[in-house]
Structure formats: C-alpha cells, structure tokens
C-alpha cells in the first residue's frame, strides 16, 4: 500500500501545483498508478533511499532523485538507480513467492494476516471515532 499511497499523493500534489519526485523500490506499482517523476532503486522493499549503513550509496541515491526532480522532461519519468543490491539477483525470488512456501507456512501466514488485520481495523476505527 505504501507505494500506492505515495503515488496517489504525488499525483494529488502535482494537480495542485507542487512538483514531486518519488523514491521507491516497487517499480510496477508506482508505474501502474502513474506518477510524474520516480527514482526506482532495484533494492529489497524497505531501502528506498540507499543501501543500509552505506552513506555513499545513500548520498548517490538522493542526488539521483534530485536530478530527476529538476530534469524530468514530462510525466511518467522513471529513472533507475544504477546501484545494485547484490551481484547475485536471487533475492528477487523470495518476496511473497508462494512457490517457495509449504502448506503449513501458508496456514500460519493466513492466521497471522487475519490477526494483524483485526489490529489495524481496531486502530482505524479508533482514529475515525477520535
């Protein structure tokens, strides 16, 4: 939801006259929504502004985003950060990949998802009531 939220917000701000740039790691979601400017880092979700404990990577990644902000020629501009997470791309096979889960794990994940959904609902209702 996170990439969709930020994409909707970028669109909304641009419609109201504020230029934006998004930094993120889920290319398909952001481009599917459709946004003005996007710096895509091909890293595991959770690292949109550079590799952890790597200030050089973080500074490089932010500078890329600023350049996208100032130089995008039009909407739907995506630039891919040239930095990579690992020379071995196998990490891309793991995220939410049901082919890699056993039936027991699927049952456990479902129970946990239901539990978290209830917690979120309670919180949402509380915020709405406040």
């Amino acid at each position, binding site marked *: *939801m*996170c*990439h*969709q*939220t*930020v994409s*909707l*917000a970028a*669109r*909304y*701000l*641009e419609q*109201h*006259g*504020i*230029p*934006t*740039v*998004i*930094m*993120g790691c*889920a290319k*398909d*979601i952001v481009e*599917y*929504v*459709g*946004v003005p400017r996007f710096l895509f880092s091909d890293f*595991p*979700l*959770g*690292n*949109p*502004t550079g590799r*952890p*404990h790597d200030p050089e990577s*973080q*500074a490089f990644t932010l500078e890329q*985003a*600023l350049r996208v*902000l*100032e130089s995008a020629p*039009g*909407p739907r501009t995506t630039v891919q950060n040239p930095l990579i997470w690992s*020379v*071995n*791309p196998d*990490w*891309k096979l*793991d*995220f*939410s*990949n049901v082919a890699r889960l056993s039936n027991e794990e699927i049952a456990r994940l479902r129970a*946990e998802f239901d539990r*978290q*959904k209830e*917690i*979120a609902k309670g*919180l949402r209702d509380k*915020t709405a009531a406040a």
Partner: protein
Amino acid sequence: MTDRPDGSDQAPDHDVPIPYRERISTYYQTLGYGAPYRWAHYAEVPFTPLDKPLAESRLALVTTAAPYQPDKGDQGPGAAYNAAAKFYQVYSGDTAVDHDLRISHIGYDRTHTAATDSNSWFPLPLLREVAKSGRLGELAPRFHGAPTNRSQRVTLEQNCPELLARLREDQVDAALLVAV
C-alpha cells in the same frame, strides 16, 4: 561484468524488477482470500514543472514511516509486521531535529533487509547536509508522515488534502516523497 556468477555479460532471466502486483495477488489468493486487490491505475498523469532552480527551492520531505511508539510492541529493527504501529492521520515533525521513525507497520522485505539503518528509508539527516551544501535552497521546516491506507478513497479524500494544506502552509516549492 565478470562479477556475474557465470562470467557472462547477460543477466539471468529473473534479474528484473520484482512484479509486486502479481506476487501479492497470487500470495493472497493462495492464502485463501477472494478477488485480488484493485490497484489505482490512471490514464492521465499530471505534471508540474519545477519553476526555479533547486538551489533556490524549498523542498519538503514526505514519508510513510511511523514515529516509534514504545507502548506499541516490537517495532524493530528486524520486527515482524506490526499493525499496532500503524497511523491513520497525517503527522508532521520538525526537520531541524532528529526523529526515530520505524517501518514495522509496512510490508517491507523482511527476508533480505532488517531495517537497521533509518537512513535507508528516512533521509532527513542527509537532506539537512545537502541543503547546507547549497544544492537545495532550503529544507522545509517540517517533514510530513502520510498514512498508508488500503482505501484509495480515504487516501485521496482525507489524507492528500491534509498533506497539501500542510505543504502550502510551509510554502514549499517541491516535495520528495519516499515510499518504504
């Protein structure tokens, strides 16, 4: 290129951006939930040109990370998904000081990253430096937190107008939005 495991200059077939929409939809269907989530998908995309150099612009930072709340359970580093740490209203913070923001309320890649360095999702300290260097005119006085909500209607009708109002109040020229 010689760094590739097989010594070739060709990338393996699966070395592409992860198709998250497809993965997530298959995942929830396999878990037994019904129709797949319908992601927002617009035909038109707005675009506002930056009308002055960045070195003269006031830039705002927008994040989906959440302030650490000691009474809300494990929020990391390395925490399991924690819905109790979610927030449902836009919040703001002073950019002149440091903040402890966490991402345990977000479905990030817990297999391959452990959220041990907030600079990899919340670049406030770096933005202060960059502003000081003159690359930016200035950093806006506040950063803003945007709630991640499954409901596109709530995001568009409640959270986005609130975010816009705060950015206008801060008289920003542009916004950097970070999706965790």
